[in-house]
């Protein structure tokens, strides 16, 4: 029995992959056994996604080989991988919202007779697949449209679909589960505690049925509770592996971060702030009071007070509700409960994490973007708009040909500066800053973060969300942890280390 359980289902050796001059994977070995939950850990940019894309055939490795059940495995695309029994449930939801559960599960593998769907057979396939992912006695209705299901049930339907798709290799799924390897990418990031627990009981059932599961996640707690083995990737290499139940969490964190000592604040830090500008707790004017604030799904409960001159950092994983919290405070989404009291006379501005999507008009000029405002003269001469744009280009040292240049032509860092310039021009008292350094180069990062500090010194109140923990520690006065939608109390940044933060957010 133990011999069978130890058989490797999937073996990767020496996988290398580079994009242009950037090498993302530098010789990765990975072995997944039959009937195990194998956690794949690593910080953003460690190479996890690329490795999974190679497993699914969406990307080809430059070097190295893969074996599936003892046979060479080199999928040409997701279709190939599916036939071989390797399937994935991606992090973002990918159901067709208007189709029913049944239609979603059998999508692409509908059994037909002369083009017509054989409804009874389709139903049987869907029922079997859903049966694998739901407990006895609990049923997900087959004829409800996917968009009417809750997030947790949608997730289960996605897993059912992946399993059915894996089974497609054998005569359109008629042989039931033929999926061998199931990749779950951050499956619990959008789930509450109870739903996550329920999901893992299903994962254990699938494992007992002989399926191998690769769990890509940031939640160390989940890994320690549910995974049989783990592998840590950092900078494209395997930096640690073992049994997560017996390995101390601190060690796994160290493997992920790659630093032995917790003296991380000593490393060449952007921002460079070390809490040298203490805030007068009693004296400083309160700008923003948030009390028991909650949204439709996330966040559940958040309370804090923001004072003049303070930078409050919010640390949380993807899906913890960081962006949603900022959007609620800014009034972009409707809140479900709680209160937001804005004492700041000049209002609240939001720096969006989605620069191209909602932060900027990429096809308009720098000047147009900077001067986009509710206020402004009724007639505004183009010349004056350009002059205003030019002034801000100088102010923030934006590298551009001129204020007339399209924002889309600028580098990420300079785009970010344009977005910041718009907020500064409005002169808000409170700035909600969401992932300001995403996708920008190191030099610009440092500039953006020191700008944040400088604004605080000038008397603004700032809420900073970032997934770069070192940035938070080096820029903020206080840091609060957002975990599964609940915001913890703000704690002085000086009391945090990167390791402690990572342990807290991922537990």
């Amino acid at each position, binding site marked *: 029995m133990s011999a069978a359980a130890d058989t490797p289902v999937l073996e990767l050796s020496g996988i290398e992959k580079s994009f242009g001059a950037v090498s993302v994977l530098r010789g990765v070995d990975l072995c997944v056994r039959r009937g195990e939950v194998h956690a794949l850990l690593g910080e953003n940019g460690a190479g996890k996604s690329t490795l999974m894309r190679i497993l699914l055939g969406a990307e080809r490795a430059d070097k190295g080989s893969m074996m599936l059940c003892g046979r060479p495995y080199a999928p040409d695309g*997701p*279709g190939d991988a*599916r036939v071989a029994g390797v399937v994935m449930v*991606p992090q973002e939801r*990918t*159901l*067709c*919202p*208007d*189709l*029913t559960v049944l*239609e979603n599960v059998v*999508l*692409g*593998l*509908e059994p*037909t007779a002369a*083009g*017509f*769907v054989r*409804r009874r057979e389709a139903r049987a396939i869907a029922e079997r697949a859903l049966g694998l992912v739901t407990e006895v006695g609990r049923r997900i*209705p087959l*004829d*409800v*449209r996917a968009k*009417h299901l809750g997030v947790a049930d949608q997730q289960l339907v996605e897993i059912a*679909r992946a399993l059915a*798709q894996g089974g497609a290799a054998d005569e359109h799924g008629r042989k039931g589960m033929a999926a061998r390897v199931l990749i779950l990418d951050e499956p619990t990031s959008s789930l509450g505690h109870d739903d996550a627990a329920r999901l893992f009981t299903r994962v254990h059932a699938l494992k007992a049925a002989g399926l191998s599961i690769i769990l890509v996640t940031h939640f160390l707690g989940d890994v320690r509770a549910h995974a049989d083995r783990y592998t840590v990737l950092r900078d494209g290499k395997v930096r640690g592996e073992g049994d997560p139940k017996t390995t101390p969490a601190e060690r796994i964190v160290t493997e992920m971060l790659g630093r032995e000592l917790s003296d991380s604040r000593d490393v060449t830090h952007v921002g460079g702030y070390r809490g040298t500008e203490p805030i007068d707790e009693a004296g400083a004017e309160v700008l923003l009071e948030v009390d028991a604030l909650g949204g*439709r799904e996330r966040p559940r409960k958040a309370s804090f007070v923001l004072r003049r001159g303070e930078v409050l950092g919010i640390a949380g994983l993807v899906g913890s509700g960081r962006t949603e919290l900022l959007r609620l405070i800014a009034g*972009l*989404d*409707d809140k479900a409960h709680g209160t937001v009291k804005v004492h700041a006379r000049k209002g609240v501005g939001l720096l969006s994490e989605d620069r191209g999507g909602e932060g900027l008009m990429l096809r308009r000029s720098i000047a147009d973007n900077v001067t986009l405002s509710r206020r402004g003269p009724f007639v505004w001469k183009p010349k004056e708009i350009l002059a205003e744009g030019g002034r801000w280009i100088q102010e923030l040292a934006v590298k551009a040909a001129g204020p007339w240049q399209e924002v889309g032509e600028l580098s990420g860092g300079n785009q970010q500066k344009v977005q910041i310039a718009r907020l500064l021009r409005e002169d808000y008292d409170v700035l909600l800053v969401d992932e300001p350094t995403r996708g920008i180069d190191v030099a610009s990062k440092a500039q953006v973060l020191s700008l944040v500090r400088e604004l605080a010194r000038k008397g603004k109140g700032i809420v900073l969300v970032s997934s770069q923990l070192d940035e938070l520690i080096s820029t903020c006065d206080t840091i609060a942890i957002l975990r599964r939608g609940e915001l913890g109390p703000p704690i002085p940044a000086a009391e945090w280390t990167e390791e402690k933060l990572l342990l807290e957010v991922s537990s």
Partner: protein
Amino acid sequence: MMLSTSSGPRRPAWLGPLIAVVVVYAIFAALTPDTFLRTQNLLTMARQTVVVAICALGMTMVIITGGIDLSAGSLVALTTVVVAWMLQSGAPPAVAVAVALAVAAAVGAVIGTLVGKLRMMPFVVTLGAMTVLRGAAKGLAKEQKIDCETKGLETLLSADVSAPGLWITLALAILVALMLGYTRFGRHVFAVGSNEAAARLCGIDPARVKLLVYTLSSFLFGVAGVMELSTLTVGDPTDSIGLELDVIAAVVIGGAPLAGGDGSVVGAVLGALLMTVIKTGAVHNGMPSWTQEIVTGAIIVLAVAIDRARHGKGRR
């Protein structure tokens, strides 16, 4: 049992338009019972709906995929010209119709390739096609109407219940509804309009689905063109200008959101019928034509408003 192409335990999309048709019909029947309720009037209304209804079948498919086709009116005109031109040069009616339908389908295949393979915006592609096809029709007809011996084609929409055009329309509606609701291809049409990325993930080729959808819908526009010729009895290159807007209105009244992912054949046909009932009723009551235009426009907006109120809860 039902011809609904949308599934799920909710009110079928065509219930609204059905109620609207019944209510509007009842109002006019009450106002002018002696003329409006005659069988002859019913038949006239049915015949007047045929062209828009057949086009709406194709447009429903297109809109479900999240697309739009603005070239429907031009293609109808081109079809009348092609059929008349063939008849004039001595071809038997069956051949003339077959050639015209082949031309229509070919046009659809080109549009479908541009939209699917080359991922161009359906609005822009079909806006261009609208003008190109109109020009082609005028060129082929040398800028005038083509008179021809219709050789029996005029009986397609003759003034009695046995008019083949009515039954062809009904049969096509049933076929398209069955296709959308019960075949694998139909499922894929909804999937592509609902979430294209997800469809691709499941091994569906959206480009192929769109190619087929635009080919089929243009083919149906061609069928509508043959019906149009049967009432015109000439090939007219300036016919059916703006028809596509009536067709889109019918589909939208029928409950299909322009964003795609949903739509109903029954609803679209009822939408087309509703517009005819308003037009005819207004004429019977001696109301000026501007009043029916206002009413029709208001109903389009109202249909979408009701749909919005049902689905859009709390989202900003």
